[in-house]
């Protein structure tokens, strides 16, 4: 899918975006900038399956914030401030998101224009203070007891009940997007797939699709099938791991240790297909790098075996009354809020949002091959667990089906040495967490000037903060696990 830029003046942008999001099929993809002198708004239409890129030229470094009207702009506008020094006027709670106190206040890593008029000279971060009788705060993190990535959670509680949760990320900002513009484009895939390492297949695929759309080339049919199999294997492995995590958090040891073992089996599928358990270096622009022809029949058998092994464990998990009781009506996100905040992936589909990028945007064999989409409407931990279980089973079926359908043929389409000039490439992929977007801009010489990544977690972190409200403190870890968000995917 090749993108066209449409010029949209600042006054019209707010109106157009509001209208777009009011349409039942309108979605906000991402908001960013190329070099700080314009705003880029990527909007998606899931009826016509198209994406539009609006460019709004800016004078100076201020623009009218859309957050008060469209709450899902919240984190995008904070990132714009951090990376480009663009200040949204009227943003209700403007805070730093990626760059912390230790960074210099006049450092705007992606801005190419000189900034003079930046507000607060210090990068202080203020948590929302809840005051009143008996309200107390629990600070958790950024260093946690488990081997997870850093984030700070500030709970304002009344007894055992969470009143407000504020999540602060940005502790692992690595400058991935900047780095992507510095390396030669043929090496970009190694950086892109490491953006979030548990999503390496999806990130590599989004990168490949974006580059192919710049070049207006397509991967070979065989490569498309192998790419989809790879994506589904990643989904299977991560869903197993997340379900095991849910079981572990409620002390259901039998299920969590079985899941840990079965995840290993899923990773073995990945090794058969790509030669790497974490699917590194497999998908690349033009096709795939590893020829797994001789392993495909073994892959099919192992998938069927995994399906058989999973069945009793999942039944045991769901048939336990106490386990259901722990998950029911916990961490509820209402469909209304899920739509307003643009929640994606399992979280969105647990709250009545039927959006799945595999049904709309071209990547691998999708959307020509349509997987079965599962939508639940309770919006609680159990709904998300049920969506995961159903998707897990569908993905296993899909892997077998795709292996059977994989055509013979070349693995790679030959690629030119240079990218086309003045183009925008976009790759929209349904990773195991949800919609993942890579947006690439080239200048007139074909050099990449801006590489923006929107991880699904960017949408869903807000969902977690909302879901935690009025729940018990001791249920938060379970709620958190049911969202299964990525820290590094957010802190690019």
């Amino acid at each position, binding site marked *: 899918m090749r993108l066209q830029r449409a010029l949209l003046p600042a006054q019209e942008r707010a109106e157009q975006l509001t209208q777009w999001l009011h349409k039942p099929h309108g979605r906000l993809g991402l908001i960013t900038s190329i070099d700080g002198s314009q705003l880029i708004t990527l909007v998606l239409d899931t009826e016509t399956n198209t994406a539009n890129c609006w460019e709004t030229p800016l004078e100076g470094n201020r623009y009218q914030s859309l957050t008060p009207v469209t709450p899902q702009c919240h984190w995008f506008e904070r990132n714009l401030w951090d990376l480009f020094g663009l200040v949204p006027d009227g943003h209700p709670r403007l805070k730093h998101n990626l760059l912390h106190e230790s960074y210099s206040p006049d450092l705007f890593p992606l801005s190419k224009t000189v900034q003079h008029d930046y507000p607060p000279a210090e990068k202080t971060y203020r948590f929302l203070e809840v005051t009143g009788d008996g309200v107390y705060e629990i600070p958790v993190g950024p260093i946690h007891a488990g081997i997870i990535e850093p984030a700070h959670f500030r709970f304002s509680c009344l007894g055992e009940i969470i009143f407000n949760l504020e999540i602060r990320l940005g502790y692992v900002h690595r400058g991935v997007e900047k780095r992507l513009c510095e390396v030669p484009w043929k090496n970009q895939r190694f950086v892109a797939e490491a953006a979030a390492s548990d999503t390496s297949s999806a990130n590599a695929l989004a990168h490949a699709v974006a580059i192919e759309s710049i070049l207006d080339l397509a991967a070979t049919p065989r490569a498309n099938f192998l790419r989809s199999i790879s994506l589904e294997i990643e989904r299977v492995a991560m869903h197993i791991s997340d379900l095991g995590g849910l079981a572990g958090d409620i002390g259901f040891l039998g299920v969590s240790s079985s899941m840990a073992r079965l995840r290993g089996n899923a990773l073995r599928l990945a090794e058969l297909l790509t030669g790497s358990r974490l699917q590194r270096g497999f998908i690349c622009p033009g096709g795939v790098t590893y020829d797994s022809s001789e392993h495909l029949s073994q892959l099919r058998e192992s998938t069927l075996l995994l399906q058989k092994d999973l069945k009793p464990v999942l039944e045991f998990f769901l048939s336990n009354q*106490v386990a259901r009781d722990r998950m029911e009506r916990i961490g509820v996100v209402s469909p209304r809020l899920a739509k307003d905040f643009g929640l994606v992936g399992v979280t969105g589909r647990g709250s009545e949002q039927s959006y799945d990028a595999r049904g709309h945007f071209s990547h691998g064999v999708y959307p020509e091959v349509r997987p079965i989409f599962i939508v639940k409407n309770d919006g609680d931990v159990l709904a998300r667990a049920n969506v995961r279980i159903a998707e897990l089973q569908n993905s296993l079926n899909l892997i077998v089906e795709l292996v059977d359908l994989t055509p013979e043929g070349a693995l790679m389409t030959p690629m030119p040495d240079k990218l086309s000039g003045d183009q925008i490439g976009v790759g929209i992929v349904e990773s195991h967490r949800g919609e993942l977007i890579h947006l690439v801009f080239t200048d007139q010489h074909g050099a990449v000037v801006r590489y923006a990544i929107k991880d699904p977690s960017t949408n869903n972190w807000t969902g977690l903060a909302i879901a935690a409200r009025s729940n018990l403190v001791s249920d938060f870890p379970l709620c958190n696990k049911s969202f299964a968000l990525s820290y590094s995917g957010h802190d690019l």
Partner: protein
Amino acid sequence: MITELIHWLFFLLSVLLAPIVILGTIRKTKARLQARRGAPILQAAFDLIRLAQKGETVSSTASWIFRAASTIGLCNVLLISWLVPWLSFAPWAPPADLFLVVYLFAMSRIFTLLAALDTGSAFGAFGASREATLSLLVEPAALLGLVALGATSRTSDLREIFSFTNTHLQMNPAIWLLVGTAIILSSLVELSRMPIDDPTTHLELTMVHEAMILEASGRNLAIIEFTHALRMSVLFGLSVQCFMRAAPAVWKLPEIIQAMITIIGLLTIAMAVGVFESLAVKLQWRRIPEFIAYAITMSLLAALIAVAGGIV
């Protein structure tokens, strides 16, 4: 004289070994049920030695209470283990009033709570608040059961109640079974084990006992861990004593066989706890009173039997 010496020897050995072996057995059972090989039975001892050799970090806001609490707790539990007839063989000890014992337990809890609050960490504070709530709920269960036994045998001295010469309770299996069950259920709460608290979790926000001792380290932590395990042995031991007295035949057996039954009983309970913890799912915080209600019901029934027995 010789028997007294042997009793002391056995008692000291039990105090040292029982906590380690019981903890090891629970962990081993859990591991085997998850198809893992698991750590050796004596791993808890190795852990304690390792902890004791480690340096210690104490929060700069902590007062003397923080370090003293663990020692007070240990002395307390050692005293309890001497007074309470949790082994069928016991050296000489002064009369142990059941109210004294119940509130000795409460005293060691108070110091654990104070130590948790002392560091000013949010985790310690809410762990303490949870522990206080739980102990408030569970106290009637343990107390009522013991009082029922005391009322039937017309004494409040635990030694007297549990002695094999006390014939008031010899032909009364129901009350023993009920009190034994009440003690084991309330000890799961008291010891923060599943389904109340998950001892294997790393999630601070869900913890009760572990949240209180998060700030402890090194030798301090070793003392706390040992105290906790000893407390578990005493409580499990006490329920084993109840269960074995439910069989009238046991009363006439020679002491050495009673001792063996005690050891087998302790290991069985440890394994049963291990099996239960592998299958159980941790209860939601709001559901815990329902679980405690089972323990209270057992004690209430025992009390009813005691009252009925008094009338007859």
